């Protein structure tokens, strides 16, 4: 079954054949996958989806599966179909009565990046590429290294040298060539663009495979709708680095609506950034349609993209759907990680802290209706960014090993409480 027709420039509309390209040669706009919608309408049904595997590949007919690809040759560690859970205690703390969490910390390498990597590297194999590569702020590095190892591909991962130690170790463990670059993410990304233009065998998931890669994020939106019983939520709050995930969640809801898999109903999408790297939120709040690149300075390293490739499209989506954008400080991010963990038992990395802190800010500002069904996307696991909790998550009591000491320690606690 082949639903992919080619690639098309999002800006000028020029079409090109499927291949390892991501930028329009004419106007430099990003290329996007074009599907055979008639064919999709015939084969994609609720029944066909639910009969599929419990992973993002249940939506294979809505993804850029290239001609001739078989399920056996997919690069697949089981990403996707993560839990969508109600969050009543966090909701109560924020004054929201119908709050849900999309818990993407439970992917194979504990972030949503496994979705996009599985889709991109499956396409890379079909394009005859032999080396999996990426520019990464950390989560993507782990995911590419793991998926390459698990499918027998060579890999090479480029990261900024100042990444959290846990992310470095959790990438190196997979035996990849791990290149630490003395520069920030935007420097690394530019370097990867240069390498990618030199060698066709190298598949940079977020450079020359970006049209395929980005489509993987749609599966977050597909799953949210399916898991809500084939209904769209009223509001989604998502973190923004390049802005791509937010844009693709919106695209997923549009595709499900057009295919008749859900009833047509309005939805809003809001975007979350860290104040130390908030080029998209800043443009939104100042009402301008131009994004000024910034030099990132935030603990939320997984969102630290100063020159966001999909920023314009994220602005378009949030304006069109009537959502909002906000940004939050580093202390607010740490507090939000604690709040989420302590109310819902979900431990998020800094990007999740950004999302929850922005959720709180939007709720307090009346930009989320207390009764509307709201989903917050928790995109990565807290063990990836432990240093941000330094001094904030410690033993509450330290005692000698006696019963008396135990009782008096807890009694003192109660008096103070």
């Amino acid at each position, binding site marked *: 079954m082949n639903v992919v027709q080619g690639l098309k420039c999002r800006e000028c509309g020029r079409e090109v054949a499927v291949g390892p390209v991501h*930028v329009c040669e004419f106007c*430099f*706009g990003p290329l996007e996958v074009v599907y055979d919608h008639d064919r999709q309408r015939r084969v994609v049904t609720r029944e066909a989806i639910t009969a599929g595997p419990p992973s993002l590949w249940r939506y294979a007919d809505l993804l850029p599966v290239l001609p001739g690809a078989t399920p056996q040759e997919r690069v697949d560690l089981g990403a996707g179909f993560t839990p969508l859970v109600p969050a009543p205690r966090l909701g109560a703390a924020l004054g929201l009565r119908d709050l849900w969490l999309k818990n993407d910390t439970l992917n194979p390498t504990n972030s949503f990046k496994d979705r996009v990597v599985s889709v991109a590297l499956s396409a890379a194999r079909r394009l005859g590429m032999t080396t999996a590569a990426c520019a990464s702020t950390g989560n993507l590095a782990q995911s590419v290294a793991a998926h390459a190892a698990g499918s027998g591909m060579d890999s090479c991962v480029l990261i900024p040298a100042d990444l959290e130690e846990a992310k470095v170790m959790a990438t190196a463990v997979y035996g990849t060539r791990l290149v630490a670059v003395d520069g920030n993410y935007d420097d690394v990304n530019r370097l990867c663009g240069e390498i990618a233009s030199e060698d066709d065998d190298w598949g940079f998931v977020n450079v020359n495979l970006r049209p395929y890669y980005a489509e993987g994020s749609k599966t977050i939106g597909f799953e949210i709708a399916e898991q809500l019983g084939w209904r769209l939520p009223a509001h989604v709050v998502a973190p923004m680095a390049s802005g791509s995930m937010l844009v693709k969640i919106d695209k997923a809801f549009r595709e499900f609506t057009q295919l008749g898999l859900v009833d047509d109903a309005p939805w809003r999408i809001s975007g979350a950034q860290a104040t130390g790297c908030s080029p998209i939120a800043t443009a939104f709040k100042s009402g301008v349609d131009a994004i000024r690149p910034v030099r990132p300075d935030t603990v939320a390293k997984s969102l630290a993209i100063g020159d966001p490739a999909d920023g314009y499209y994220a602005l378009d989506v949030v304006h069109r759907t009537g959502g909002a954008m906000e940004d939050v400080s580093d202390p607010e991010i740490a507090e939000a990680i604690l709040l989420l963990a302590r109310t819902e038992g979900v431990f998020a990395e800094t990007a999740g802290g950004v999302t929850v802190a922005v959720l709180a800010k939007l709720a307090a500002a009346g930009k989320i209706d207390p009764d509307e069904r709201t989903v917050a996307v928790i995109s990565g696991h807290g063990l990836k960014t432990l240093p941000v909790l330094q001094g904030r998550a410690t033993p509450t009591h330290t005692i000698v090993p006696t019963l008396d000491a135990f009782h008096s320690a807890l009694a003192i606690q109660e008096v103070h409480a």
Partner: protein
Amino acid sequence: MSATIRIPTPLRTATGGASTVEVDGATVGEALAALEQAHPGVGERLLDDNGRLRRFVNVFVDDEDVRFAQGLETPVQPGSTVSIIPAVAGGC
């Protein structure tokens, strides 16, 4: 009274291989119009049908992004360098 326009590699097919082009023009818009006159066809790669700068084309006058100055009305001083830089369409 001329300024220098720096041409990025992917656009040099439209400038006969030239990496820089000397033009006359008091504003970015005039400089780009002069570039189009010298090398017909390059203009539509930079400006859309409404004559606006395309979203993934960045133009700098010396070190200032014209989007944060006066756009195509941004003044070009004699001896200035106008750099055309495609956006880096990559990343997470």
